[in-house]
């Protein structure tokens, strides 16, 4: 089950073919290397647009949310067995 975290993070990634791919993120002073992006979900409510990157880092799943209007990153949820 995913546990809500909802904390601001810093994300580093690459642009390729006009598409951003996160590569690592900084959360609680620790860098997490992203091994795989398993899913990309576009979320929209009114004109509030967000893109959720579901990724695997160090064998755990994370949901990173990028607010496209405010250009901010949040670690939204973490998978806990």
């Amino acid at each position, binding site marked *: *089950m995913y546990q809500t975290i909802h904390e601001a993070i810093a994300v580093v990634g690459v642009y390729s073919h006009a598409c951003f791919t996160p590569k690592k993120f900084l959360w609680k002073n620790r860098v997490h290397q992203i091994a795989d992006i*398993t899913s*990309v*979900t*576009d979320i929209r*409510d*009114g004109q*509030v647009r967000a893109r959720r990157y579901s990724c695997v880092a160090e064998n755990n799943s994370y949901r990173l949310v990028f607010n496209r209007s405010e250009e901010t990153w949040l670690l939204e949820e973490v*998978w806990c067995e």
Partner: protein
Amino acid sequence: MSSTSLAFLHIDINSYFATLLQQETPALRGKPLAVVKEVDRTCIIAASKEAKMLGVKTGSSLIAVKKAVPQILVVPADFSLCWSATHRLKKLFESLTPSSELFSLDESFIHFAPLVRLYSSPLELAQKIRSEIFATLGEWVTCNIGIARTRFLAKLASETASPDSITEVFPDQEAVLLARVICSDVCGIGYRLNKKLHALDVHAPYQINFIPQQDLERAVGIFWAQQLRLMAQGDEPLFLQRLAEPAKQMKSVGRSITGWRLCNNEAMIKRTLYNLVAEVVHKIRRMHLAGRQVSLFISGEDKHWSNFITLKRHIWHTKELFYWVYSHLYQQWRERFPVIKLAVRLSLLESWYVVPQSLLPAWQKDESLAEACDTISSRYGLFAITSGILARGHRIHPEVAGFLGDKQYQFL
């Protein structure tokens, strides 16, 4: 034109809700998964391929399934994930062909005729689609593709095949397919129709060919007798033929909610009804529609109550609809029982450009207010501004239904 160039392809993603969750979270892959609407819900709305192999069916009770399959994992559905994936699928099919028809959240039809110069056969197109879905949605997402002369046969072929397969039905195999499948598995034959067919000793669609017309009409009526005859021949019934027509304006918009437990609390019922009304009105206003038939449905403890009213004029304000739902219909409910499900519907919809507007100053004021709220909602989201009734507590937000009955609204 050869028979293959007239073929239809039906693409159906296997166990959509569950497969997408497994794609997103590798820890869930290969495990039997039961998807419920929200945490603590007990009705299974989707099951993974692994769970289906253990006999878990959509619509089963979680309590019963947990007894039979103790290792089952229960996860809440992620509607945003599914809706986003459907958008990607729609874009993908539109990039491949000008004639893709979205049938439900995870099903589409593609007519091969316009693509006959691009692909040597429908099978080649099917293989291309399969690899594109893999690249778009991920390596865990698999699909069934049926290829046949009509949409009906293509759908039947993909639905009866094993997961992750391409099935081509040639004209000489059509009768075998129609004789092999059971009526309850056929799209369009619901529970009651299936029961009537059972009474005629019909278990497979092909058997309908041997029932005299009079007997069939007596059992299921003229309309369904005609539709069933088409199905028995492998031809398309009306609901599939209509996919080729341009989308028509919606006839009604409704919203229902089933709670966790029975509710007697008047304030909670009022609040829930307002929430449902607000969503219905938000949808009709976005589509510039107005309706004049208001319906309310209440159920709980195996009891049901429903009522409707047909108004002389069209309405399209939350205040008006809530008045008719709560102050009029709901107050007529006499033999009260604890409630588990509430449903609100506004029907007989027309474009608001063709219905007369009220000239009363009070109505004009309400319209100005509604327009201002629409502007705020379109910018900041639904319920960014709403009535004080919904100010506190959990709000019911719009959801996508698997059959995508409101696709005209969803793709606005």
